[in-house]
């Protein structure tokens, strides 16, 4: 598996190289680059399967590299020290990212995922989706990428009625009665979707307020959804849910 490493700091490149050589022998490092133009050149030259891309590169961002490439037929693992802005979009696009200093387990998992994707030949639309998301203000995100076993599903937020936790899996209940299971925790999606108005009513429930029909009082706290489903509201979340629903 050919790879190109992009980071503006030499020590980070050195470090990533050392770790990959030691823990991911299937990765062959074709080139490293410390700035945007070098990176574009290296990718075009080596046509890698995988690109490790630092998000914050001095005055520029790793996303610039993606924008400058007409064909993005490679997988990307983002590497970032700390970045509020980029990371949200990356998460919405269900792309993989690593935080510095790099955790070896996470690195191995991410590389393995890429390897799996390459074998199943899933068409990579996530990067296009990411670049689209980046153009909009963060709050205007209207679609989320949900990674499933064999595909990535792009679901408009308005079609999500609710999410329910099942250990480290999350079930998405859609308006067309479809039920999607994603192998990520509800907490991750709660954090991601809360800015879009989704309500965490309960430890294992996340609800789109657009589908709330009424607030049933008889049993302490239960929300009746337009689909007829009843969702519990925990005592801890009662006040915040109440306030949020009043605002609508």
């Amino acid at each position, binding site marked *: 598996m050919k790879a190109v490493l992009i980071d503006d700091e030499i*020590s*980070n490149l050195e*470090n990533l190289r*050392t770790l990959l050589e030691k823990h991911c022998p299937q990765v062959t490092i074709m080139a490293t680059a410390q700035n945007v133009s070098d990176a574009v050149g290296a990718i075009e030259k080596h046509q890698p399967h995988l690109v490790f891309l630092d998000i914050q590169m001095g005055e520029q961002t790793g996303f610039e590299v993606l924008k400058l490439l007409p064909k993005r037929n490679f997988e990307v693992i983002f590497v970032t*020290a700390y970045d509020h802005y980029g990371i949200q979009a990356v998460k919405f696009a269900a792309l993989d990212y690593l*935080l510095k*200093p790099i955790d070896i387990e996470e690195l191995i998992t991410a590389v393995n995922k890429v390897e799996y994707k390459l074998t199943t030949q899933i068409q990579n639309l996530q990067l296009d989706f990411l670049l689209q998301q980046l153009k909009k203000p963060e709050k205007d995100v209207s679609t989320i990428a949900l990674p499933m076993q064999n595909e990535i599903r792009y679901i408009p937020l308005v079609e999500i009625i609710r999410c329910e936790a099942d250990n480290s899996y999350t079930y998405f209940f859609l308006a067309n009665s479809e039920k999607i299971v994603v192998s990520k925790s509800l907490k991750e999606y709660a954090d991601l979707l809360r800015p879009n108005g989704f309500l965490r009513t309960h430890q294992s429930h996340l609800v789109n307020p657009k589908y709330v029909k009424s607030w049933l009082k008889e049993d302490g706290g239960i929300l009746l959804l337009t689909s007829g489903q009843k969702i519990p509201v925990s005592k801890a979340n009662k006040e915040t849910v109440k306030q949020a629903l009043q605002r609508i």
Partner: protein
Amino acid sequence: MKRIIFTFLSFFIALSTVNAQKGINFSHMYAAGGKLLMCVDSSAKNVHYNNIFPNQPNTSFNYLPDVHNLSIQINFRNNINIQHYRYTILVDNKPIVVNKSIDTAQLKNTNAGGDEEVFRSTTLGIFRIQGKIITTLVYSTENPLDIDKSVFYGKPIPRAKIKFFSKLFALDHGFGSLTDLKERTNFSFAKKDKELTIIKDKSDLDYLYYTSIKDKQTNKIIFKSTAWEYGHFVDGNAYLPHISIDKNIFKKSGDYEIIIQPLIRWNISSKEKEKYTTRHTLSITLEERSYTKKELLIYTLIVACSLGLVFLIFLYFTKKRNKQKLAEKEQQKNTAKLQLNSVRSQLNPHFLFNALSGIQNLMNKNEIDNANKYLSKFARLTRNVLDDKELISLSQEKTLLDDYLQMEQLRFGFKYEINRSENLDLANIEIPSMLLQPFVENAVKHGISQKATDGKIMIAFIKQANDLVLTVTDNGNGFDTEKKNTGLGLLLSDSRIQLLNNIYKENRFTLAIQSTTNGTKICLTLTDWL
């Protein structure tokens, strides 16, 4: 009216027969009241003739203290029936002549000065007046109630005596009075008191005297009265003359002089006049209201209590307001400090994690000693950031910057120097912590991170008189100082400087930035810091 004209006309009448009898100057005639004229000693001075008094229209008073002999004449106009006239003469109240007719045989024609009118005139007699009082009564039987009385006073007029004072006060029913106020010089008027009464001794000449009151403070006469009342006060079987003075004429407490003197048209000196004048000074106190001791105690208590209450309320509100103000100030300062803290602790997380990544690299390259060294630096740096210390010494700041710059050197190979003025006591001069770090970070980020090993950062601590000047210079590409979004570090620094100026009011922090394509110099001056 006619009579008055007549008496004045007759003033200069000169008799044709000049009689030098008993030293009397018959050429000088004085009006003596009514139809009477008089002639006195040629040597006599101080002839006070024909004084008329209020309420005594038919009485003429002639005061002749220096006169020995006196001639009294009577003048009639031509149209008067002289045979109807009678006259009475009393010497020291003893009648000498009573109701006697005019001896028409004695009448002569006289001229009144240059006047054409001819009067019929006769003398009523020549008298010794020295030490005596001669009184004449003249009337016509046609009109017996219209008696003209003339008094010729040959003795010194006695001074009036104030017998005593009386005070009239209101009772529940009517009035009461206090009369045992002899010899009083201090007078106090309570609210219920109405008037002060002055009681004079009784004399035959009461009508002669008038009373005035002078405010001794302003020297103005505030009261004058010629009227005497009778009744109420009795001495033996005589009513004593008195006047009542309303309390209200005394506008304020103070000394007032009561003056009683004869109402004579004086032609003597004021010093001589004093002989006839009675003066009495009263010290008047006006009391708004007199209270009993019990009332006074109650009122005092009430006033004291309400004053105390007002004071307490005032105190309470003042305290409350002060407390509020103090709290507000404290809060402002706290807010500023809190903001400063939040600004201070924003050491770029991007730097932190990249630094950790650098250490990870050292570990993975098996540079264990270096990894340890940088890990210690990292720990010290983060500790400084997490520490809430407001002030750190310059040497601590230097260590912090050393640590920081060496961590950054691990990421980007550049050179740096930290210089200082020789006479600067690094160990003891304190500055707000993390003051320079944002500028240094900015120098690394925007200045030399692109230049790698050619980059150079120079930091200097300089003593300039009483100012501490801190400079950060880099040889990077520079940036537009007008553009505010040239990095979190600089933006934060601006607000930090503002906050610092809010907290340390006595010192002024000033920031100067010069940026060219050949580098950037940041100059932070702490005015009067040393």
